[in-house]
């Protein structure tokens, strides 16, 4: 299979208005991905499926990933004039990246038996604008998986014929897999609470005794 840069070049030649970037993957798996803009995603996907050399007809996995607002600190070396001399100084810049939800598609080819080609789409923000074009008209396997992303992350897919909740019940509100999901305020008795669960537990019942009769054990005596 050809390299990702070649694929990118050919896609840009075929769908001229599309804006594609390569997202590097730092891990040893070397699975880099193409980020596609939302307007032309469907055209790009159709081209990827129909191109005779690639023929990516098998969409294996559709994943939703939630990214909150992040600040990236970068340290760069800059030449600055300090006390009349030019010196190299390290400066830290902060870059604020607003949050978004992205959908990652892993594409393989059953005819040519190669892959994966990974494409990503990002929503403009995590609020009312969290919409993405649905790639279900191109790959039928996205049907249930896009419904799952809608159910668990709250991303609406335009063009999906049957977008409703799939794993949670229909009257459920809020989106469980988001990073800022707050659990409902119901609580059951838990005999071995840990860390932050202990705080919640204290509100609902009296804190458990810290000893269980262990203070009654004398060294050398047989256990009861």
């Amino acid at each position, binding site marked *: 299979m050809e390299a990702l840069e070649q694929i990118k070049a050919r896609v840009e030649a075929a769908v001229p208005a599309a804006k594609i970037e390569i997202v590097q993957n730092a*891990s040893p*798996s070397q699975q880099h991905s193409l980020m596609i803009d939302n307007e032309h995603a469907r055209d790009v996907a159709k081209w990827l499926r129909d191109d005779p050399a690639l023929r990516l007809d098998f969409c294996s996995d559709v994943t939703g990933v939630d990214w909150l607002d992040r600040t990236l600190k970068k340290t760069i070396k800059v030449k600055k004039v300090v006390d009349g001399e030019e010196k190299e100084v390290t400066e830290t810049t902060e870059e604020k990246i607003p949050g978004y939800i992205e959908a990652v598609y892993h594409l393989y080819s059953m005819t040519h038996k190669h892959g994966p080609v990974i494409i990503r789409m990002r929503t403009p923000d995590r609020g009312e604008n969290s919409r993405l074009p649905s790639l279900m008209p191109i*790959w039928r396997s996205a049907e249930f998986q896009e419904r799952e992303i809608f159910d668990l992350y709250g991303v609406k897919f335009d063009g999906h014929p049957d977008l409703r909740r799939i794993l*949670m019940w229909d009257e459920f509100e809020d989106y469980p897999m988001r990073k800022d999901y707050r659990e409902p305020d119901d609580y059951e008795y838990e005999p071995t609470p840990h860390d932050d669960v202990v705080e919640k537990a204290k509100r609902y019942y009296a804190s458990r005794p810290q000893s269980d009769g262990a203070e009654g054990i004398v060294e050398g005596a047989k256990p009861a």
Partner: protein
Amino acid sequence: MSATVETLEAMERPPVSMGSRLEGELLEVSMGPQHPSTHGVFRMNVALEGEIVRKLKPVFGYLHRNHEKIGENTSYLGSMPYTDRLDYFCSMTNNWAYALSVEKLAGIEVPERAEYLRVILAELTRLQNHASLLGFLLNDMGAWGTPLMYAFREREKILDLFESLSGSRMMCDYMRFGGCRVDASPEWLDYAKKIVDRFPRFVDELEQLIVGNEVVIARTQNVGNVSAELAVSAGITGPMLRACGVNYDLRKVDGYGFYPRFKFRIPLGEHGDTYDRLMMRLLEMRESVGILRQAFEQLPSGPIINPKVKIRAFRPPVGEAYGRIEAPKGELGFYLISDGGPNPYRYRVRPPSFINLTILEDMCLGHTVADVMVILGSVDIVMGEVDR
């Protein structure tokens, strides 16, 4: 919701000779979550016209345990026992898929003996999964438990093997990143070889019981046909895809885990109906026995785990990876995004049973209610995987 015959599309309407009798509404039946034949808590809302299915909408989520969110709050090693519980019939292959994804993410090498052990256990898992599937399918067709008990008899032998190796019959928690947890002693290998040598006799018996049986043929041939294009587009994998004639088996395509060293064939079907799916599993059982025999001969000695991998405080580098294997039910994949911490940032399971259910409606339209059970049985779902 009540649809009438007139609101259906022209191609969905019944033939004219029946139309004069049927002018009523469609009957909505919920083949509900509590059902002896739905392979777990699975619900199907079917709209029936007499006995013929006109619409079918599956409803899942009854076994949703939010495995993916738990994975984000648990360390990488701590998620390994949770993966056992995804497809609870085949815990070894679930473990292998997860270990493979983490090994891809962190670039960990696996020693030879460990890979051979993994192949042996995965093929044993495939044997017992296909055997119990055939038993369950025949049970759903009304065979009153006899083939099921024969299949379970063989399955018990394989589960005894798992128990003496890993400590537990079904929730084995056996694979680790960079190898396996426990070494297989020579006694265990002898015992396993004996069981594998006796297995083809069981497959012969099962074949004699099922394949020529007129009732099975009448109930499964030309029922639930799937065309190859629909299967590829819908992301179907596993024996269901190969029954449609598409030659795509991850053991040959990806060649993970030393599978290229073994000689085995891939059975392919022609019609894509239930009978082909049933035969796929029978033939795959025979191929698995062949792979097992070769693996037992070629098994080298050596370490079973990569000593450089830490058990506690395991932090893979920043990045992401998607690793997949050919589980008995289809392509099981894990997609992991790491941010350098001890817990994964995103942990996603690509469940084969969930995706294979995409075309359940297409397969069942126009068939009777009794066929729906047979078709569902041949898709081979396990709710632990569908709902995670």
